């Protein structure tokens, strides 16, 4: 048995192995859940305390004042609903696309403030912490990774596990 496995392993090219992992239903499931749970978790404190989140958006110093409250009110629910859609496996492509856009917006906003050396409150997973207290570069790295996850879920063409919606 071991010999067969070893033999198989030797005959399967690396490219094929990567392809197998990429198209594995459980890999897609894991990544979809990681993304979904992250966004649901991230939305929690913003829903509980929208005022602080509005303040965090304000501190980015990028958006016109009249848009801040509406963003602070809607974005947390967009995160929650998108995260839930990914976990349930319903409208997951739409959810992945929305999450992808949100992450791009966030990466651009953080980068602009990083370049101009502006102190701001990230407001990602908790509000009320200044960016100087933590590593902003880590936020960017984490979000770049989540963005790759979102693209993977969006463009995945194999079989998906545990999805309410069976198309796609």
């Amino acid at each position: 048995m071991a010999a067969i496995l070893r033999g198989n392993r030797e005959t399967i090219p690396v490219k094929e192995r990567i392809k197998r992992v990429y198209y594995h239903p459980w890999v897609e499931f894991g990544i979809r859940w990681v993304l979904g749970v992250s966004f649901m978790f991230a939305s929690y404190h913003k829903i509980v305390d929208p005022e602080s989140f509005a303040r965090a958006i304000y501190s980015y110093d990028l958006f016109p004042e009249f848009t801040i409250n509406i963003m602070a009110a809607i974005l947390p629910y967009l995160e929650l609903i998108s995260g839930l859609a990914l976990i349930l496996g319903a409208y997951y492509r739409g959810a992945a696309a929305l999450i992808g856009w949100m992450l791009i917006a966030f990466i651009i906003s953080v980068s602009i403030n990083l370049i101009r050396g502006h102190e701001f409150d990230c407001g990602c997973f908790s509000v009320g912490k200044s960016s100087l207290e933590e590593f902003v570069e880590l936020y960017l790295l984490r979000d770049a990774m989540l963005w790759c996850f979102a693209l993977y879920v969006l463009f995945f063409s194999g079989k998906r596990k545990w999805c309410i919606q069976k198309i796609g």
Partner: protein
Amino acid sequence: MRRSFLFTSDLIREQRKRGFFQRLAGILKESATLLGISIIAALVFNFVSPKGIAFFGPSRKIFLSGPNTPENREKGFFVEITDVEMAKRIFDSGTVLFVDARSDDAYREGHIKDAVSLPYGRFSEAIEGFKNRYPFTTSIVTYCSGISCRDSHELGKLLLMAGYENIRIFIGGYPAWEQRDYPSEGTN
């Protein structure tokens, strides 16, 4: 023969193109549905929640603010000074005590002229001395390091609970004051 080959490849290309646009339309439709659900959820929960915020208007409207009536003071609402020039006029009147809610270091570096330091983080140890020096009837304006900082509001709440009646929050804080080159003191 050549014609039919061309025709087939065109057909495949056309089908692929149609498939791409169909998928794109599907993704857009799903995104729009999720966005719609989120907006409805936000509207409903924001309306129901006691922590809900005003949808439109500048962000400062969401902060605890309102007319300086006894009822609002009881609810913990403050009058906010949103305009730096207004803060300057209040400063010029000379009847108001400016209270700096920032840390001791920030205060030492620079503060509004004649402002008193009462760091929010050291409120419990500093309040007794403060009470001995300033009666409850003192008109107070608290400030910190700008609109994104909440210490001036938190300090306002604590002062209100301590017994002070007339509290206003200057939300522009020291950065806005310093930018206008209004009277300041400090090492910087």
